[in-house]
């Protein structure tokens, strides 16, 4: 108890210095946590991918579509359980800044495959019945104040013109990793209008969404599908949903690396600040540690006292930083939800915060502790004079 009292009292002896160091640690951990969450949010699509789902697209590029007739051939491929298809629609609501993910999909099979979208059965039935019917994620509906039954007009970019929809349902995610900011509507609605407006773009799917019998079959089924369409006018590239998502994310990998690097640099900076605090504190108290060694306390006790003091300061700051990460993430989510629909502070981030605090505490303490434990007692005692 006495040693604990020394440890805690020492940590707050120079109040201003300690408070500033704690504040620095709080900001560093907060920044570290938010930056890590940004990276996690960026990879959220990848993380949410299902291992038993494949995506088939045009082998040249996503810009090119595939004939709708491929659906039946894919369905007949060994290992394929279900097939759905869709097109990236790329419209916005009222103004260009109101952009969000919106896709034309074959609704019935899409909902069967993407079973993480939870929809009220009555709403689902209404959605499937009406060709102009659409569903929106809970966050997207909240963003624009949409209610079931609302008439929603989107302005097309890839498919020009005004597009009217009736919101038939609002889905929620099965868990927090599901994107609740997507707008989905009937592929038939798009296709019928294309037949009239631009027949060349009719009967085309941007991608096929495939559920396979088991994840282990992914490579084999992918090869089979691509083999079917080899040497055709529209060759396919089939890959797992995860690989498909990663191909998007990898385009921005350098930015993500930079963000991760910055998060480490933030910790390195606070490490230097904390080490300086500990070095100053221990230098001021060298004679006190020497007195304790004179009384019979060993180098181990001195190290524990100094490391403990360092840990009290860094963990106080770290815990405050962690506590602030959650409201900060909430603010981030509400302000930048359209860019980061899934912005969740993960358990891993909290563990990394704590690990960073431990490393800062250890690194800050090690040199001063070594000095306090090894400076000759008589020499350290003279410093008190």
């Amino acid at each position: 108890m006495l040693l604990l009292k020394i440890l805690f009292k020492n940590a707050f002896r120079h109040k201003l210095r300690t408070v500033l160091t704690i504040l620095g640690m709080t900001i560093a951990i907060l920044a570290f946590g938010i930056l890590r969450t940004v990276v996690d949010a960026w990879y959220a699509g990848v993380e949410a991918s299902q291992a038993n789902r494949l995506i088939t697209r045009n082998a040249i590029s996503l810009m090119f579509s595939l004939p709708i007739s491929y659906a039946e051939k894919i369905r007949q491929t060994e290992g394929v359980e279900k097939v759905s298809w869709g097109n990236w629609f790329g419209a916005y609501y009222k103004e260009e800044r109101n952009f969000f993910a919106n896709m034309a999909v074959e609704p019935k099979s899409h909902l069967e495959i993407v079973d993480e979208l939870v929809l009220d059965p009555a709403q689902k039935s209404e959605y499937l019945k009406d060709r102009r019917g659409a569903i929106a994620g809970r966050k997207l509906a909240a963003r624009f104040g949409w209610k079931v039954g609302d008439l929603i007009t989107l302005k097309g970019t890839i498919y020009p013109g005004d597009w009217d929809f009736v919101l038939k349902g609002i889905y929620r995610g099965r868990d927090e990793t599901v994107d609740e900011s997507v707008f989905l509507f009937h592929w038939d609605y798009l296709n019928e209008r294309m037949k009239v407006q631009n027949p060349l773009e009719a009967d085309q799917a941007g991608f096929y969404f495939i559920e396979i019998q088991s994840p282990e079959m992914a490579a084999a089924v992918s090869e089979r599908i691509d083999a079917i369409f080899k040497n055709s006018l529209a060759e396919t590239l089939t890959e797992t949903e995860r690989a498909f998502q990663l191909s998007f994310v990898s385009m921005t990998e350098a930015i993500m690396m930079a963000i991760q690097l910055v998060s480490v640099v933030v910790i390195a900076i606070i490490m230097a600040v904390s080490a300086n605090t500990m070095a100053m504190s221990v230098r001021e108290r060298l004679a006190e540690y020497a007195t304790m060694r004179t009384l019979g306390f060993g180098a181990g006790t001195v190290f524990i006292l100094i490391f403990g003091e360092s840990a009290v300061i860094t963990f106080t700051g770290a815990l405050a930083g962690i506590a602030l990460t959650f409201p900060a993430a909430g603010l981030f989510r509400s302000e930048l939800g359209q860019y980061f629909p899934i912005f969740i502070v993960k358990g891993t981030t909290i563990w990394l915060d704590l690990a960073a605090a431990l490393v800062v505490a250890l690194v800050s303490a090690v040199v001063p502790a070594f000095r306090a434990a090894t400076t000759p007692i008589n020499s350290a005692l003279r410093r008190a004079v």
Partner: protein
Amino acid sequence: MAEPFVKISNISKSYWRGGRQVPVLADIDLVVAEGEFLALMGPSGSGKSTLLNLIAGIDSADTGTIEIGGVETTSLTEAELTAWRSDNVGFIFQFYNLIPVLTALENVELPLVLQGLSRKERKERAAFFLGLVNLSERMEHYPSQLSGGEQQRVAIARAMVTDPSILVADEPTGDLDRHSAEEVLGLMEKLNREFSKVIIMVTHDPRAAEKAHVIRQLEKGYLNASP
């Protein structure tokens, strides 16, 4: 004739300063008998504090041996020496060296943490020794709330609380006014008389040295012949 308690033979010590070896103590031989109160005097830089540190086991000699209470401390390892100090040596410093974040009672209790006593036993023992130095009323005060004389009395209680076989005091009155110095010296005399503690005290002050049974003079690293 009392038995020898401290036996110092051919102790030499030098320091390196600016790349030059500076001899501090040369071939010191000294015997302190059981129950003796010895004062070491000498001008600044004569090596008296160095000799005291060697006896107390907080510095190591270049050559020679020191035997205290039958233990040759010069042959102990650092860890053994630390444990030996904890059990056998009580320190009284010129500047008291109390831990500022602990109360008077806790400062006295601190060395007992290493003695394996229960918290209650530690508190009782520390309170007893604070009573012995007439500070029962100041037990909950922090060092900053005590006068210099009171702080030194707390330091004496801390030095005594583990019942050490030897007390070493480095200029214990050097930072005190005359009245407080008298109190502290009276207390040390009492400890020597009533508890038969061997006391070795380094001092500049002839009035302090008068309290000792034996006064030895150090000059330029040499100990003058016994009186």
